[in-house]
């Protein structure tokens, strides 16, 4: 019955669930709000399953397409569809939403309904970002998701949350506004269309391409985030509640990277080739410099935030190598980073809930007090460092291989991450988990309960599964990547 509108369901089920959760009102009904939120998140995941089962991996054409009239006056359509690039991201997002709802189960005691609703609504909007094939529709979802995230950071965040929330919002808005002007320009260049696929075929002069390249680069580069426009991320991560950090790292950063594949590369191929050195340079700076910055962090969340920037540097590096291995490596890295960073932020959340500190120096000797937790944390730390057999290894390895094909030096510089990544992650792990207990409060820490084991266990399965057998993921994206690359190889100069 709903076969024709799976993507609409994927977008609107979480949003409507969020509205229902809001309707439960004050904190007196908090248990009800939690259960409805969980049901909504699970339902949102279930309606996304047909995207996998019904997905045709043999074509790069858009699938599950829906196209309805929306704003005929400006020729904007309610146009949805997914290919091998966006489908896994939708699934990742729906999956992470369930985890986030469970993660906030006991921790959040204040304005529970609003908290849960904000996450559900944001989840629907993010699915919209990945599914939209109309420029205006994309923009509406792209900007709309800022509102719940702004509230999540600002209402449930740490002491410096107001600064972080406003900085996050204005930073991302700056990029998107210039993108909006570019989109309007594209509308006139393409003869009055906001259709993204039409834009892919629009011829554009080099000057226009270059200017728009920088506008889009700012919009998506801020989201990724790329050096030097990354400074909002550590602030936002540190101040956000655990769920907010998870969504930020696992999903919102992917929105930026996704924008590269959907907008910058196919719409502006000539400028992308011309300016690839620039993006590669920024990516390598992110990988090396931000990796070193992560090394000296005293705050665990900040450390993981910086490590996210370094890992996303791999993604953008892979995209601008213009070969299939690089693109698929970048995409695998995106998904893998979604699992690993989510898991690490959940781990930090577990510790924070018990000790109310994120400082590395306040911990030490957790292995004896929380052995089960320590084991999970070990796995995710290794994945973050890129240990083979974890998902973190696959993406990095593919990108480094791709870089070798293009330029040996790129590969060499990028490969230093295997050293710095291991250094900052494992050094943090050592200081937090091993050694003797110096802080008396650590003595009193309980090991993780069933709810937390469930959360981390599910993510552990994902991380290991993807690390041992990544083929299902690459199969889904392979045809789309090859065809998109062929498109990007063609010049669009008039």
């Amino acid at each position, binding site marked *: 019955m709903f076969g024709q509108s799976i993507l609409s369901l994927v977008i609107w089920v979480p949003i409507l669930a969020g509205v229902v959760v809001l309707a439960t009102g004050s904190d007196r009904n908090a248990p009800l709000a939690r259960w409805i939120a969980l049901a909504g998140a699970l339902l949102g995941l279930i309606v996304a399953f047909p995207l996998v089962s019904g997905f045709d991996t043999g074509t790069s054409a858009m699938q599950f397409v829906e196209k309805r009239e929306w*704003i005929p006056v400006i020729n904007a359509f309610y146009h949805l569809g997914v290919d091998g690039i966006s489908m896994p991201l939708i699934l990742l997002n729906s999956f992470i939403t369930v985890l986030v709802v469970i993660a906030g189960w006991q921790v959040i005691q204040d304005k529970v309904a609003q908290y849960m609703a904000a996450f559900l609504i944001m989840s629907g909007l993010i699915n919209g970002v990945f599914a939209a094939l109309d420029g205006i529709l994309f923009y509406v979802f792209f900007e*709309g998701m800022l509102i719940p995230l702004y509230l999540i950071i*600002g*209402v449930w965040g740490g002491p410096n949350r107001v600064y972080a929330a*406003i900085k996050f919002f*204005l930073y991302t808005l700056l990029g998107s506004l*210039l993108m909006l002007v570019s989109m309007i320009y594209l*509308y006139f260049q393409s003869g009055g269309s906001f259709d993204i696929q039409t834009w892919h075929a629009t011829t554009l002069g080099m000057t226009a391409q270059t200017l728009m390249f920088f506008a889009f680069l700012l919009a998506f580069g801020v989201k990724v985030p790329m050096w030097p426009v990354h400074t909002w991320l550590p602030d936002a991560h540190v101040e956000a509640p655990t769920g907010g950090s998870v969504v930020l790292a696992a999903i919102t950063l992917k929105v930026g990277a996704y924008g590269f594949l959907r907008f910058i590369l196919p719409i502006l191929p000539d400028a992308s080739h011309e300016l690839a050195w620039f993006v590669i340079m920024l990516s390598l700076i992110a990988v090396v410099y931000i990796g070193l910055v992560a090394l000296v962090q005293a705050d665990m969340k900040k450390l993981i935030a910086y490590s996210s920037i370094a890992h996303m540097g791999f993604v953008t590096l892979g995209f601008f190598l213009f070969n299939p291995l690089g693109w698929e490596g970048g995409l695998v890295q995106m998904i893998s980073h979604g699992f690993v960073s989510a898991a690490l932020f959940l781990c930090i959340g577990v510790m924070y809930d018990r000790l109310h500190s994120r400082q590395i120096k306040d911990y030490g000797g957790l292995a004896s007090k929380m052995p089960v937790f320590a084991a999970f944390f070990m796995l995710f730390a290794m994945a973050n460092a890129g240990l083979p057999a974890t998902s973190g290894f696959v993406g990095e390895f593919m990108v480094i291989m791709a870089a070798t094909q293009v330029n040996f030096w790129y590969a060499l510089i990028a490969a230093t991450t295997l050293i710095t990544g291991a250094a900052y992650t494992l050094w943090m792990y050592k200081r937090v988990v091993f050694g003797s207990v110096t802080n008396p409060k650590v003595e009193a820490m309980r090991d993780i309960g069933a709810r937390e084991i469930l959360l981390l266990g599910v993510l552990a399965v994902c991380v290991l599964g993807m690390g041992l057998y990544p083929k299902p993921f690459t199969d889904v994206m392979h045809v789309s990547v090859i065809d998109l690359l062929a498109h990007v190889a063609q010049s669009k100069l008039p």
Partner: protein
Amino acid sequence: MRDSLIQFAPALPEIFVLAMVSLILVIDAAVDDGKRTIAYVLSLVTLAGAAFLTVRDFSTMPVLALGGLFIDDPLADVLKLFLYLTVAAVLVYSRDYLRERGLYKGEFFVLSLFALLGMMVMVSASHFLTLYLGLELLSLSLYAMVALQRDSSMATEAAMKYFVLGALASGMLLYGMSMVYGVTGSLALGDMAQMLSDGTDLRIPLVFGIVFIVAGVAFKLGAVPFHMWVPDVYHGAPTAMTLFIGSAPKIAAFAFAVRILGQGLESQVAEWRDMLVILAVLSMAVGNIAAIAQSNLKRMFAYSTISHMGFMLLGILAGSQSGYGSAMFYVLVYALMSLGGFGMILLLSRAGFEADQLDDFRGLNRRSPWLAFLMLLLMFSMAGIPPAVGFYAKLAVLQAVVEIGYVWLAVVAVLLSLVGAFYYLRIVKLMYFDAPHDTAPIVASPDARLIMSANGLAILALGILPQPLMAICVHAIGASF
């Protein structure tokens, strides 16, 4: 003049409003203070009746009447319907506020309706005389409304400022009109356009005339550098009057600008476009930057109005039908947002307390999550963040500007709107992130709450489905030009 009676028919809504105002004036003089509700109900009846007449005689094409002084076209009819709606919302929002401050008198209703009549004449004018007549009827009513709170020195001062500067602007406008008249020999917009499209040797007097007219229009819109009155008047006037001044007259001012520039001086677009570019950029810059420094919400909204009018001018300066359509959409959306913003101040105010400081919004989410949510929608709409309708208003004017090749102007506009986003976000921050200052329960009448909810939800609903309102604007402009 055989068919002189029929010639009055297009002006039936105006005639009806005039008759009703006179009736209310007489009735109100006869009843004592306890029965002021009669005037309130009669005013709403007047609005409903005028709306009925406008809808019944809705014109599908322009009809000139009263010897070419008056035009009844789809643009005028649509704008009039929105004027009725706006004024009705103002009346409902301000009832409790006026009652608590001893301003709940017949004068308020009579002046509101006279102002409405002035605006109706303005949107239906096809002649310099009627344009000016409507403008003065509106302005004089507004001056008196601001001064209505006689014992408030701030309100009196604001009224004086408003009057003096307003008279100056009217003088400039008249001077410009007389110069254009000297060049074209006609006061009727249609004849003028005809004459000018054939070309004229009198370039210099014509350009001078246009400069003065643009200055007059800019004053009425509150565009920089003719904006000095806006913050003082918005701040000084009782909030109910600010609500009135900040909403409906902007719709009329839009019509005023489009009638003169777009219809009368259509062929001179090259002359006035550059002037409007300067006005628009300055308004967006000064409005958005000065708003950050304000601690009084009414003043902040005043500066935000200035920036919004700058945005609206972007649509007009495009000088195309799509440009006018986008400006019309912008001004209608703006009126809706402005109603909500000032309406919220009225709703949170109570006897002896004005909720017009930014601090009064602290922790509103704890006091009333619903009102906070509505205010959130209003703020994001003003900032131009989707899915609120304000985004589409900005999108439409930016589109109009890019269409004429002024991409740089669109870039300047979005960068300045980024500055603007900051102070709107600050309101959201106060409401959601901070603890309440003021813990008194919010007392508001159910009808005001209802209008507020409808107003806020309209922002969201139009943001999800903007097509109907956008199409109305495009068609109204298309059928009137």
